């Protein structure tokens, strides 16, 4: 006996249930990337802000912004670079507003007081040098600064930075070269 299947001609492929499943799929995909990309967003933000609570706040905002717009991202391979740029931009905005507030408030001495506590590497370099380095980095062009921060993150090679930002390897090396040279000239 032949089995007949009832087909609804009016039903279109992009029905509510398909949209629902699309949303669930995007949610699941984002969730999978969160474990890897969350720390990356935090580190980029911390590299700019040098304040753990502020960096966490910015990283959360950047991740949520990425989550809200995740379905609009056409190439999922570019997710990391996209998120890094969002986090970097938001951290810069926060840093500028912090600096404005610091200028307004008298007696606020600078970034040393905002640091959340020295890490092992911060102990290795003097706090005075670190403060000068932070000031010098703040004066770098943004594209140099971002490459320098990403290249400094443990576990990321220059090839990965190149892929993350979608720029050629030669451009990454060139930006890194000029960034380090400018820092050396400022800190000499």
């Amino acid at each position: 006996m032949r089995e007949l299947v009832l087909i609804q001609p009016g039903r279109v492929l992009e029905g509510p249930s398909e949209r629902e499943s699309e949303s669930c799929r995007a949610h699941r995909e984002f969730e999978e990337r969160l474990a890897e990309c969350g720390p990356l967003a935090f580190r980029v933000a911390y590299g700019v802000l040098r304040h753990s609570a502020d960096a966490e706040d910015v990283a959360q905002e950047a991740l949520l912004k990425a989550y809200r717009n995740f379905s609009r991202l056409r190439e999922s391979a570019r997710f990391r670079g996209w998120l890094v740029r969002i986090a970097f931009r938001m951290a810069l905005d926060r840093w500028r507003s912090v600096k404005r507030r610091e200028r307004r408030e008298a007696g606020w001495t600078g970034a040393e007081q905002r640091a959340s506590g020295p890490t092992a590497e911060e102990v290795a370099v003097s706090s005075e040098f670190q403060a000068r380095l932070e000031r010098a980095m703040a004066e770098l062009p943004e594209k140099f600064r971002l490459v320098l921060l990403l290249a400094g993150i443990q576990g990321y090679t220059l090839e990965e930075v190149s892929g993350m930002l979608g720029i050629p390897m030669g451009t990454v090396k060139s930006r890194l070269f000029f960034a380090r040279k400018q820092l050396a000239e400022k800190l000499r």
Partner: protein
Amino acid sequence: MKCEGYRDKLIAALASGESSPADDVAAHLRTCAECKKFYEAHVHLFGAIDSGVRAMVNEAVPASLLSEVRERMEEVQAARANWKLSWSVAGLAAAVVLVAVGFMARRGPRPTAVPLETVASARPTSEKITRVLAPEKAVHPVVRWSHRTRGEPFSNPESVTSSPEVLVPAEERAGYEQYIRTIRVGNKALAKDANFTDPIEIAPQEIAQLQIKKLELTSITEETQE
């Protein structure tokens, strides 16, 4: 090459991340104590820069970061669901309103209440009605508008060839003319064009002449005697 040239090469090599200087620079460093001192200072400087940058970006990630992000993602999901639901309700309400408006529009406008006095005065009377003819080209504005339908542009009054007639009771003629002039305030050209001709046919009321007989005077006493 002077020392300045070697120092530029040294800085370029260090900025590029090269571990050791080129052969010619290394040979110069063996002979020039000042450049060797410069090189060692810059090796230390670039090392400090790299350490400082690494210290900036390799801060321990707070344990609360991912859990809080997940919580906020759930909030976003819930808000999206609520947003979709509220838009569905709003769309349904809008559809109901549209259907209701369409239904009311099909039924047409309600007849307006007419005062009893107006009804009474509008009764057909046996009076003679004055016939007023609009001129050939000047179109009565009310008549012109009555021919225009929604969405259709105003027709050029000059192009209308009909000469509509309006029947007005004689006693209301002056009032009617006044009415036409007053409702077209602001459109003086139309008011001017509303040229009312005299009645073309006014049937004079003919009243038969009275015939009065001459009175004959008789005395009362004679009448009583008869």
